[in-house]
């Protein structure tokens, strides 16, 4: 698991939280709430709203929680945040590569970047099979991911407090953890170029390694969800989008694992959050194979969400997808018009208003505010 914020801490939730949670649950089950709920993802945008240095945000999980909560309160009536605190170093656990962070390798105001190099060698596919994922990954963490693992441990320790803080103020911290696809792990540690070559040159070895990863991931995911509870769990797609792979490769290396991980989350009572970046148009109909009225599909503006509604309406809640470039370069009127279209054509049933992927750091505040206000006819 790359990212977990654990169960919430604190007193019973206030009525406002319950109202918002009810609105979200209605949408998740493909019903029509009193109005479309909102759920946001923001990190550096929140820094810019409050004047917090990116380096400070990255260095201290409590600063990340304070910053995101502060920015949320400036935006007004937002039902939910996907994450209540954040440590970018933790991304290393997803893509098996260390992060370059502001204030350390990068200037204070620079965005964090993945330091992607060939760290997994071709022979490692066999080693993963021989050793098992846990022991192999333990060695790999020791060599490359000490900081990412420390960030994950800190998040497990501190994040529940921030989940409690958000709940106490009436906000729904939607997601509790990620359940990562083995493709994302191997592709990150091997690099896109080399991993893509491996899919053609040594497909059986890649497949065997992915299956070995799944042996342990299945049980880890089940135990984690049982321990944390019925929150959202990101089963995300970044490098696995159909846009990047031919149907033959995608059917073999992506979909079976994606489907199984989603089913595991649903079976354990979690809400599978399909945070899908890039274009999924080609395979959008495959999502009908996933559990009905349980998942949330969150796209980033590159998938045609209007077409997706025609295919998935009544089967799956859709979330999104004001494009990052529109929030950055567009006008308030453009954002309003796009949101109105989302509300009427993708909503009103089974729809959560949101940005595509995450609010970009240089989004105009007034554009984000227009998106937030749109659900109340603003």
């Amino acid at each position, binding site marked *: 698991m790359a990212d977990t914020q654990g169960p919430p801490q604190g007193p019973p939730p206030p009525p406002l939280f319950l109202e918002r949670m009810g609105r979200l649950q209605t949408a998740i089950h493909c019903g029509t709430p009193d109005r479309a709920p909102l759920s946001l993802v923001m990190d550096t945008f929140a820094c810019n709203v409050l004047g917090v240095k990116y380096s400070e945000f990255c260095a201290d999980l409590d600063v990340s929680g304070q910053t995101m909560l502060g920015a949320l309160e400036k935006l007004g009536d937002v039902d939910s945040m996907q994450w209540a605190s954040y440590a970018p170093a933790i991304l290393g656990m997803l893509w098996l590569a260390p992060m370059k962070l502001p204030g350390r390798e990068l200037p204070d105001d620079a965005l964090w970047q993945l330091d992607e190099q060939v760290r997994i060698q071709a022979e490692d596919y066999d080693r993963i099979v021989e050793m098992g994922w846990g022991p192999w990954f333990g060695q790999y963490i020791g060599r490359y991911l000490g900081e990412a693992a420390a960030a994950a441990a800190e998040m497990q320790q501190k994040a529940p407090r921030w989940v409690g803080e958000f709940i106490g103020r009436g906000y729904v911290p939607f997601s509790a953890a990620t359940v990562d696809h083995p493709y994302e792990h191997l592709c990150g540690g091997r690099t896109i170029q080399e991993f*893509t070559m491996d899919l*053609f040159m040594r497909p059986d070895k890649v497949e065997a390694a992915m299956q070995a990863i799944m042996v342990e991931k299945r049980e880890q995911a089940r135990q984690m969800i049982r321990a944390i509870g019925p929150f959202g769990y990101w089963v995300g797609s970044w490098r696995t989008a159909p846009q990047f792979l*031919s149907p033959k490769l995608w059917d073999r290396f992506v979909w079976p694992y994606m489907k199984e991980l989603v089913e595991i989350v649903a079976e354990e009572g979690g809400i599978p959050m399909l945070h899908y970046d*890039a274009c999924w148009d080609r395979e959008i109909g495959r999502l009908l194979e996933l559990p009905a009225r349980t998942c949330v599909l969150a796209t980033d503006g590159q998938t045609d969400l209007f077409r997706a509604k025609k295919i998935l309406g009544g089967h799956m809640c859709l979330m999104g997808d004001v*494009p990052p*470039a529109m929030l950055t*370069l567009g006008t308030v009127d453009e954002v309003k018009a796009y949101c109105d279209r989302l509300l009427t054509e993708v909503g009103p049933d089974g729809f959560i208003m949101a940005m595509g992927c995450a609010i970009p750091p*240089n*989004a105009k505040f007034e554009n984000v505010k227009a998106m937030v206000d749109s659900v109340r006819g603003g």
Partner: protein
Amino acid sequence: MTLSPLGQAVDQLQPDAAVGLVHEKLAAGEAPLAILEELQAGMGAVGERFEAGEYYLSELIFAGAIFKQASAPLQEALADASADADGIIVLGTVKGDIHEFGKNIAGTVLSSNGIKVVDLGVDVAHEKWVEAVSESGATLVGMSALLTTVFDDMREAVATLERAGLRDKVTVLVGGGPMTEEAAAYVGADHYCKTAQDGVVIAKRVLGVS
């Protein structure tokens, strides 16, 4: 156009066949430039399959690697062949952004389609574009970005070309994850490329080559 067996090997994503045929042709005394043209024809066919939705980025990456591997023995003989390129493009990821994968794919498919690529790398300072265009005589500039935060840097890079009096002499292509037609207009580019193959199609059209 009918592909030669070498072109077919590239088109059908058969690395061993492509490499073997290049060695056979060199041993038989065939001209390196003619062999290169067969490889390029194969890459052209790969591009057509990509445009038709038959191949995807995965196949573009693999075909690019096959092309590189198969053409490696030709490089020494073709060292002076850049003068025969259809055109020159200065390519890079703009200042403030270190993502190189998309830029590298674009470079591979452009060069394998007969366009000489001057690769400036990543995090390219604005004045570097001016220097590279001036030195190479390129008529195309390709700017890549994966972050919305560098739209203004991309715009400034285009403005720097303008201030240097080079803007009218080059066609600026932009691409990358967050780019859109609107973002391309904002930065002052001439063309938005949704994919690397779009870059090839637009570059060939601008250069007037088929």
